[in-house]
């Protein structure tokens, strides 16, 4: 290669590079930018943005950053440089949202939600549970001013599902899924006698373990005692906690859990259930769309996890699922709020729900849901979520508990051993937080 060639190439390179630099155009007041992570909704969002522009002459620019881990990174990085868009989402736990609010990046929407309008307030259109995930109650542990800081565009419930066809095959009544833990064990026995594998969950994703364990802890000991554990007033070595942990030992000992489920990712577990290789699974309402794609003929129903105790109600995780917040520093705040208001109206919510088979956040949009989705919608009333708990467990303890349950599931540790191990972590964390506040 001659020098001329090299020089030419370098010049060409510069031209290409510099030409890309002019893209930072000035965005005007009438363009609202939204950062989202939902690849499967990208096309609906674009269509809705066009509809909104036609109605209001406000342009909405949806930018997709996926997968959600990258999205969360981008949002955190942008928060450090004050380059957040007008509308974005805080993916993570309540304390992350609290940190964003404290750093002044998230607008308080309480006023807008409560403003009286014809046809009731904006707030009144939502499912009661839909907004709770973004709400901070008075005197909350983070010291955030009470109010609602985000709006949900859909809701979800995470519960158990059973395969009706496999039920029929085993001679069980497909309209009578197990109500109690004993019934569940009995049904599993019948299923196994008929050569049907029982339960698949994606317990490789530890939040799924966390959700199921949390459901049973609340059912067995009641919310009050459950929260007291978080506060350190009830130890994890309490008999009730050991009982919760021993449920997982039963799942393992009775070979109810499908081999390998303890490390499965959601995709594998969903394939297993969709292809009728397990009678039960544990999944969120978004699974309806997933199963429909994999096996349209799958005949299944949703059910609450079978009760362990009658004393306290069985609650499942759920409520507002995908939420957006408004950038408090944006001078397009009013337009951003106007768009979110429009997006959560009945018509737009119906479009969104229909397109991705999700549960809408607007209760008027329920319309004609598929049978399973209606069952999920019906159970929204039983939902709760760590994001609406008044107190929170330290993540280190939660991870120790979830990982410990994995150890129980593979028969490595006993419930008692795990209870003690988790309690040790809890004590360490509490000691540390005491030191932190001199």
């Amino acid at each position, binding site marked *: 290669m001659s020098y001329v060639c090299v020089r030419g190439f370098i010049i060409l*390179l510069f031209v290409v590079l510099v030409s890309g630099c002019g893209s930072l155009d000035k965005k005007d007041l009438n363009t609202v930018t939204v950062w989202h992570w939902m690849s499967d909704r990208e096309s609906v969002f674009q269509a809705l943005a066009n509809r909104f522009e036609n109605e209001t002459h406000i342009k909405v620019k949806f930018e997709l950053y996926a997968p959600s881990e990258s999205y969360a990174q981008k949002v955190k990085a942008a928060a450090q440089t004050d380059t957040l868009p007008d509308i974005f989402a805080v993916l993570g736990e309540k304390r992350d949202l609290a940190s964003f609010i404290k750093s002044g990046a998230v607008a308080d929407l309480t006023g807008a939600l409560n403003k009286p309008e014809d046809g009731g307030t904006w707030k009144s259109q939502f499912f009661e549970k839909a907004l709770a995930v973004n709400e901070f109650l008075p005197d909350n542990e983070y010291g955030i001013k009470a109010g609602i800081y985000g709006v949900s565009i859909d809701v979800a419930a995470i519960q158990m599902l059973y395969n009706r066809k496999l039920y029929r095959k085993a001679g069980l009544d497909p309209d009578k899924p197990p109500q109690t833990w004993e019934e569940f064990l009995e049904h599993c026995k019948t299923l196994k006698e008929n050569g049907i594998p029982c339960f698949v969950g994606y317990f490789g994703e530890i939040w799924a373990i966390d959700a199921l364990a949390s459901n049973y802890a609340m059912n067995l000991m009641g919310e009050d005692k459950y929260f007291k554990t978080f506060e350190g007033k009830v130890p994890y070595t309490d008999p009730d906690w050991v009982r919760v942990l021993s449920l997982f030992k039963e799942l393992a000992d009775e070979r109810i859990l499908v081999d390998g489920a303890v490390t499965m990712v*959601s995709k594998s577990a969903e394939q297993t259930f969709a292809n009728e290789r397990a009678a039960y699974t544990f999944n969120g309402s978004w699974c309806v769309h*997933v199963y429909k*794609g994999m096996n349209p003929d799958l005949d299944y129903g949703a059910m609450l996890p079978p009760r362990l105790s009658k004393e306290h109600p069985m609650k499942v995780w759920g409520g507002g699922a995908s939420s957006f917040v408004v950038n408090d520093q944006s001078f397009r705040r009013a337009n951003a709020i106007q768009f979110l208001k429009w997006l959560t109206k009945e018509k737009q919510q119906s479009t969104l729900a229909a397109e991705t088979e999700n549960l809408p956040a607007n209760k008027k949009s329920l319309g004609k849901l598929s049978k399973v989705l209606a069952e999920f919608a019906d159970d929204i009333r039983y939902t709760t979520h760590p994001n609406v708990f008044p107190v929170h467990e330290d993540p280190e303890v939660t991870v120790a508990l979830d990982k410990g349950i994995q150890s129980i599931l593979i028969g490595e540790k006993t419930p008692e051993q795990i209870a003690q191990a988790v309690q040790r972590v809890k004590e360490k964390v509490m000691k540390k937080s005491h030191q932190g506040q001199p």
Partner: protein
Amino acid sequence: MKDIFVSPGSEVNYEIAKKTTASFFIHALLILVSLTCLFPLWWAFASSLKTQQTVFTDLSFFPKHPHWENYAAAWTQADFGLYFLNSLIYTTAVVAGVLFIASLGAYAFSRLRFPGKNILFLVIISTMMIPIPGSFIALYVLLNKLHLINTRLGYILPQINGQLALGIFLLKTFFDDLPKELEDSARMDGCGRFRIYWNIALPLARPAIAVLAIFTILAVWNEYLLAMLVLGDKSLMPLQRGLMVFQGAHVTQYPLLMAGIVITVLPVLAVYLALQKYIIKGITTAAVQG
């Protein structure tokens, strides 16, 4: 052994027989390993011709009713036309940058003298070791200060830097072992150091440069985390952004995703095939020995 085969003719036959058996076993082994490498690609290809319902149930070697239209659908839905061009620009720029800068640096570390050489080499190499997990925020803040967020340059420069350590390390290893005689004689003829580097050292290190090019191309072609962080405009995004369309938060459209993967993998393989010959034609054809 040789004593047994007295006649020269039979010895030749034996040699040939030995060679044939040996090459039979060699090929058997190579084919076995090849099959394990080919299987996933074949699976991806076969899956790309199925439907979402049959992708995990129809385990046939080749689907009975191949859905070739998946490829057209993947191409348009993922907007590959646009992204291909972008990825081409990024790959060319990063590869050119890495090859040029890394080979200059490696040559300097191998042949030239400058203050703090050894320490600097260690420091640069050590950036390969430290998997700065939290560095994305620092990088974003830095790029923001430099006004490089959402620009092509802001995406290219960190990637060149990202490959430099590997490149310098790899090329230095090869430069170190190249014969110095030719360079010495060129110096006697009055050539400057750049000319020696460009006309003599670089051509000699062709196999190593080809390897570096292959690795860099693959890295840039498959990159998307940095793209998500740095870029905003869809029109600037690289190829991998297209594949994201098929991977929803919950639903993955497997056949289209597989079609997309096959589409994106083919160019890398083609380039690798083309660069192969530089790995083969190393020093022997340059015929510089002695």
